């Protein structure tokens, strides 16, 4: 134990004396957090519309005005030519074309089937789907208004609709930021902890100091612990720091127990830092460590469910996620913060990571060779 304390003392002196390391550890991630949470949003605003109005009636203007009044849409251009509108779509100047045919108003009041056409740029299928969804909402809202305004003219049966009232639980305002912030925070904490610890170990190899360590009677687990604990503490600090920023700047709710969250995070970090240390016991220099770490992190992050729900991934990738520590923490941090999940709800993830941590740390200790 005393040996580990001497190791920790040395590591902390090295970290805190390094004038370039401190900003890297504490300022960069916070800047990233603020930028990414604001940028990485799936909410669509400012969807550009070209209106092709061949009806030029009161009703067609009312419909257009509805789009203009929506916070999601910008009506950029009116034209009579569908070909010209298609050019706009092609040039990426517009996201959606609303094509109102002549006779629109006439059909509307004569109870014929009324048609308008939406042409949507769906290169990004998610954005295309959302654009369609928002536009349809505006149109059905317009439809309801028509019905209630003309309630005397039209027969009763046409406004008997099923009235659906959606209620969004856990994030009632559908605020994307409070969903993204925990996810991005997980990534930042992981990157900092994993890279710092594994680069630190392999740096001792590069400098040759590891040889001097290997010739001492130090135990293998002591050395690994000495490389793990400092960065584990720093990563937990980083998490606390990020949560404070989230609370102050983004009003992220913290419904569940923070104690539970940090308990889970400490086990999670043992896994990620363990993987990093295992990699650095194999690698010979910092370059190799960077590339191998980067490979695993990229796969882990994109499969973790930060942007897209794990449940909608193909079956095989859901199975791969069993060994993806990020997927566990990504899920749990959102459950605890946004839903207020308790230990009972996350105990499966907790014990899985506990087993995972003991495996990777044993591997790291085993793979670290004092005798070559």
């Amino acid at each position: 134990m005393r040996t580990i304390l001497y190791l920790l003392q040395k590591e902390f002196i090295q970290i805190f004396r390094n004038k370039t390391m401190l900003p890297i550890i504490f300022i960069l991630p916070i800047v990233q957090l603020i930028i990414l949470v604001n940028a990485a949003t799936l909410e669509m605003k400012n969807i550009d519309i070209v209106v092709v109005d061949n009806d030029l009636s009161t009703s067609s203007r009312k419909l257009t005005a509805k789009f203009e009044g929506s916070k999601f849409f910008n009506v950029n251009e009116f034209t009579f030519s569908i070909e010209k509108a298609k050019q706009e779509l092609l040039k990426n100047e517009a996201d959606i074309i609303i094509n109102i045919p002549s006779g629109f108003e006439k059909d509307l009041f004569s109870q014929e089937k009324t048609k308008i056409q939406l042409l949507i740029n769906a290169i990004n299928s998610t954005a295309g789907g959302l654009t369609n969804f928002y536009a349809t909402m505006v149109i059905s809202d317009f439809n309801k208004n028509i019905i209630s305004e003309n309630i005397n003219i039209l027969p009763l049966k046409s406004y008997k609709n099923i009235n659906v009232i959606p209620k969004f639980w856990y994030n009632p305002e559908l605020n994307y930021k409070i969903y993204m912030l925990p996810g991005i925070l997980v990534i930042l904490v992981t990157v900092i902890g994993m890279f710092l610890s594994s680069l630190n170990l392999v740096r001792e190899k590069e400098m040759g100091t590891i040889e001097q360590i290997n010739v001492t009677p130090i135990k293998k687990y002591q050395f690994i612990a000495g490389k793990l604990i400092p960065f584990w503490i720093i990563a937990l600090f980083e998490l606390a720091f990020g949560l404070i920023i989230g609370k102050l700047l983004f009003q992220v709710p913290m419904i569940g127990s923070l104690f539970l969250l940090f308990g889970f995070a400490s086990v999670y970090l043992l896994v990620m830092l363990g993987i990093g240390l295992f990699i650095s016991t194999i690698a010979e220099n910092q370059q190799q460590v960077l590339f191998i770490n980067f490979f695993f992190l990229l796969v882990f992050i994109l499969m973790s469910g930060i942007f897209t729900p794990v449940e909608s991934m193909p079956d095989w990738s859901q199975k791969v996620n069993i060994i993806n520590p990020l997927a566990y923490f990504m899920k749990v941090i959102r459950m605890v913060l946004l839903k207020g999940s308790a230990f009972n709800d996350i105990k499966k993830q907790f014990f899985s990571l506990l087993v995972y941590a003991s495996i990777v740390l044993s591997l790291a200790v085993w793979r670290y060779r004092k005798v070559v």
Partner: protein
Amino acid sequence: MDQAENIITVKNLVKKFGSFVANDNLSFQVEKAEIFGFLGANGAGKTTAIKILCGLSAPTSGEIEVASYDVYTQTDLIKQNIGYMSQKFSLYEDITVKENFRFYGGIYGLSKSRINERITFFLKELKLESAKDELISSLPLGWKQKIAFSVAIMHDPKIVFLDEPTGGVDPVTRRQFWEMIYEASHNGITVFVTTHYMDEAEYCNRVSIMVDGRIDALDTPENLKKQFGVNSMNNVFLKLARN
């Protein structure tokens, strides 16, 4: 020669890397408190042998005992009883002189008071009291080497292994370094040293000369010079290495 006085015993040491034989059947003994010079050209296998004796590398075959512990099974006991200073200079550059002493003292399990006692002793001995809070990276090479040697004997090991300790150091500092080696030997520490400087070979009690993984000569410098009929270790070395 009394067998009990041998602190290192090597019998038929072989170390192979694939088909390359780095150490070809080495056998020798080192006596307690002796200064044993381990010479050889670059690539002769000196560093390989020294790493095996320190428990940093496993031998392919042979019977080797260091400080009466077996190199196959008791490497941690060996490590507690030896000091090591390598040609690849291994103090931590980004912490101070004092912090390096404290760190290694702590790793070797010295008590806090013993660590402080040793730090005071070495700083005085090296006349480095004023530089104790300087970063290692800011010191000249000669000072670093002397500090590294002091760190290596801080825990009072039975043997200290020095792998080309004076490479790149000026003659005055080399002289001072050898005074430190003599003092360590005087205090009962066995010194096992490799070097390229043949004048340093003259300072050793006994010298072995390795050529192509084998030990071609092993005796006192006096006897070696007589045996080869030359007047300096330099000529002994050249005669052996040219064959």
